[in-house]
C-alpha cells in the first residue's frame, strides 16, 4: 500500500455516505506530515490504536505530472496562495496532503545543529524534554528508515556541480546535500511530487507502516475542534470535505481514550487550539512565529546548465549560518517555475527566456530574527510577519556572496530579481548588490520552514506546551510538530521535526 494507490483499504476513509461517523481510538493524530506520520508510527508500533486525520488528500503517484500548477492544486494549502503579511507579502509554502511537506520539499536532511540545541536548553529548558543522546538515537533510526544518503554524482546536476566548484575556489565550505531518497533519477521534480517514488516521503513509509500496524487514516478530513471535558481532551470533531472544492462529505467524531496528538504545522496547530479554547492561558499561543524566508539568485553561464535536470537540490553551504544567519542551497526547477523568475514583460521576456537552459539558480535562506504571530481567521489563518532591517541586510549579503560563488564558477551575469537594481548585473557589477535597498518590498521571497506559535518550556506562564509535550492547561493534548520549537532552527527542519516527534511519541507511549 503506498501513495494512495490502495485507498480502498478498509482502514482508509475519505468520506461517510450518510450521517456522522463516530469512532474511537487510543490516540488521535492530527496531520500526516513528517511529525504526524512519525508520531503515528511510534504509537502504533507501541501497540496503541491510532486514528490519523489529514485535511488533504492522498495523492496517487500518477497524479504527479511535474507541472507546478497541478501540484499547487493537489498538494498545496490554498493552491499555494497562503502568505505572511507584513511590510511585504511572503508566500508560505505548506503541503496539504497525506505526507504533508515531505511530498513537496526537496528531501533535504539535516541533523539539528548542536549549538541550537544548547541554546534551546539553556534559554528555554528544552533539555528537560529530551536529551541530546535521545535525539541522536532518533536521527539514526530515521536515517535508516528513510535511506538517507548524499546526492550521487550521476544525478547531481550541473547547477550543483558548478556551485561546488565555485565555493571550493573561494575557500567557502559547502557540501553535497544528503536526502531521503531511493533511486533518484534527477528529474528535478521534488517540488511537484516525485513521479517515481524515489523521494522517501512519509506516506510511503511511516503512514503506510502505521496502517499495517492497525492504524486508521481519515483523509480529506479537516479537524475542526478538540472537545475538552473536565480539563481533559476527549474527542476530535472533524469534517470530510473535498480539499479543492470544499464540498462536504460528512462529519467525523473520534473519541480519544488516551490523548490527542496535534501535528498540524505552526500555522494550523495554534488555530485549532485557539478554536478549541486550549493553550490560551499562557498568553503565548500563536506568538513567536519564526521562519526561514529566502530568495533565489539566477545567473547565466556560458554553457548549458539545464536546471530541470539533476537533483532538485544538490549543493548547500552553511558556511555563514552562525555569523550571517544565512544558508545557501542550489535549487533546480522546471521551466514553468523558472520562467516566472526570468525578468521582463512581453518581447523582452521572450528574449530573456531563450537563455533558460544556461541559467543556474541558488537560494539564500535567512535565519530571521523577526517574530510573527498566527491567529485564526474563520477557517483559515492569518500570519503577521515583518522582516527587520538586520534580516534584510543578512539576505542581501548572502545574495552577494552567492553571486561571488556563481562568478567564481564561471557565470557571465547575474539576474538579481531585486527592485532597485538593474535586471542583469555583469560579473564585474556584482558589488552593486551591496547598494540594494534594505526594504523587504524590494525582494521576492518565499518561506517554507516554519517554527514556533506553541512554544515548549517548563514555565506555564512563558510557554504553551510543557516538557512532557503536553499543553500546560489541558490534559491529553500533545503537540509534536515544529510549533513547539522556541526559535528557528537554521537548517532544513524535516529531520529535526521527525526526531522531536519520535522522542515525544515514545514519551507519550510510555506514560
Amino acid at each position: 500500500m503506498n501513495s494512495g494507490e490502495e485507498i480502498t483499504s478498509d482502514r482508509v476513509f475519505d468520506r461517510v455516505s450518510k450521517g456522522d461517523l463516530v469512532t474511537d481510538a487510543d490516540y488521535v493524530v492530527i496531520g500526516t506530515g513528517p511529525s504526524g506520520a512519525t508520531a503515528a508510527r511510534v504509537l502504533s508500533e507501541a501497540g496503541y490504536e491510532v486514528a490519523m486525520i489529514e485535511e488533504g488528500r492522498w495523492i496517487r503517484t500518477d497524479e504527479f505530472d511535474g507541472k507546478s500548477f497541478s501540484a499547487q492544486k493537489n498538494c498545496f494549502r490554498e493552491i499555494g496562495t497562503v502568505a505572511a503579511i507584513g511590510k511585504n507579502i511572503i508566500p508560505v509554502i505548506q503541503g496539504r496532503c497525506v505526507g504533508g511537506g515531505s511530498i513537496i520539499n526537496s528531501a533535504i536532511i539535516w541533523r539539528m545543529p548542536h549549538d541550537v540545541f544548547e541554546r534551546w536548553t539553556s534559554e528555554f529548558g528544552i533539555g528537560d524534554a529530551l536529551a541530546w543522546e535521545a535525539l541522536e538515537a532518533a536521527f539514526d533510526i530515521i536515517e535508516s528508515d528513510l535511506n538517507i544518503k548524499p546526492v550521487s554524482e550521476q544525478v547531481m546536476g550541473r547547477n550543483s556541480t558548478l556551485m561546488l566548484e565555485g565555493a571550493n575556489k573561494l575557500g567557502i565550505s559547502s557540501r553535497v546535500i544528503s536526502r531521503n531518497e531511493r533511486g533518484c533519477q534527477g528529474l528535478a521534480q521534488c517540488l511537484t511530487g516525485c513521479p517515481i517514488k524515489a523521494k522517501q516521503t512519509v506516506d510511503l513509509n511511516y503512514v503506510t507502516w502505521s496502517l499495517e500496524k492497525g492504524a486508521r487514516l481519515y483523509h480529506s478530513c479537516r479537524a475542526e475542534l478538540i472537545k475538552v471535558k473536565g480539563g481533559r481532551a476527549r474527542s476530535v470533531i472533524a469534517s470530510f470535505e473535498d480539499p479543492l472544492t470544499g464540498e462536504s462529505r460528512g462529519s467525523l467524531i473520534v473519541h480519544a481514550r488516551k490523548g490527542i496528538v496535534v501535528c498540524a504545522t505552526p500555522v494550523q496547530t495554534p488555530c485549532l487550539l485557539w478554536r478549541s479554547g486550549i493553550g490560551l492561558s499562557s498568553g503565548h499561543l500563536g506568538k513567536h512565529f519564526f521562519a526561514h524566508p529566502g530568495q533565489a539568485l539566477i545567473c547565466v553561464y556560458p554553457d548549458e546548465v539545464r536546471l530541470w535536470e539533476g537533483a532538485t537540490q544538490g549543493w548547500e553551504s552553511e558556511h555563514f549560518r552562525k555569523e550571517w544567519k544565512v544558508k545557501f542551497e542550489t535549487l533546480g526547477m522546471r521551466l514553468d517555475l523558472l520562467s516566472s523568475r526570468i525578468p521582463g514583460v512581453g518581447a523582452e521576456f521572450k528574449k530573456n527566456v531563450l537563455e533558460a537552459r544556461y541559467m543556474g539558480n541558488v537560494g539564500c535562506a535567512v535565519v530571521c530574527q523577526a517574530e510573527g504571530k498566527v491567529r485564526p481567521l474563520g477557517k483559515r489563518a492569518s500570519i503577521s510577519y515583518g522582516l527587520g532591517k538586520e534580516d534584510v541586510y543578512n539576505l542581501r549579503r548572502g545574495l552577494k556572496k552567492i553571486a561571488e560563488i556563481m562568478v567564481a564558477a564561471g557565470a557571465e551575469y547575474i539576474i538579481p530579481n531585486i527592485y532597485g537594481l538593474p535586471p542583469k548585473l555583469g560579473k564585474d557589477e556584482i558589488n552593486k548588490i551591496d547598494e540594494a535597498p534594505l526594504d523587504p518590498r524590494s525582494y521576492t521571497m518565499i518561506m517554507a520552514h516554519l517554527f514556533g506559535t506553541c512554544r515548549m518550556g517548563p514555565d506555564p506562564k512563558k510557554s504553551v506546551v510543557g516538557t512532557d509535550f503536553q499543553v500546560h492547561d489541558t490534559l491529553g493534548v500533545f503537540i509534536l510538530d515544529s510549533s513547539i520549537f522556541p526559535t528557528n532552527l537554521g537548517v532544513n527542519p524535516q529531520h529535526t521535526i521527525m526526531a522531536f516527534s519520535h522522542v515525544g511519541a515514545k514519551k507519550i507511549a510510555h506514560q
Partner: protein
Amino acid sequence: MKMRAFELEWAAKMVDAMIPPGVEEKIPKSASETGATEVLREMIFYTPALTALGLRATIWLIELLGPMIAARKFSRFSRLDPSSREKVLDAMYNSKSYFIRQMVLLIKMSSCFAWGADPEVMKALGVEDTPKFVKRSGN
C-alpha cells in the same frame, strides 16, 4: 468564486501582454494559447473567498486603472492595442509601488505556469521529460 466571461477576456489580454504571440521564431505561442487564462480562472475558483477577491480585484484594477497608473492614459486596458498593453504592463512591472508590482507578478506567475509547462514551448527551449544523463545510463 466564478469569473465572468468578460473578466476572462480581460485576463486573456493581460496574459498575452505578458507573453505575446510571435516575437521569437522558436517560441511563437502566447500565454493564452497555452491555457494561462484557465490557470487564473482556476486560481480564483478554488482559492478561499478572501484570496479570490484579491485576485479578481487585481484583474479589475489592471483593466480599469492600469493605463492610467502606468501611462496616464484614459483608456481601458483591453481596449489598447497589443503593443500599448505590453508597455502598460511593463511600466507596472517596474512601478515604484510594491502593490502594483505584485499585481503584475500575479499575471506573470499565472502566465508562466501554463506557458512554461506547454510541451511545444518546453521542447523549443530544450526541456525534455527525461534528463539526458538518465537516458545515457539506460535507467
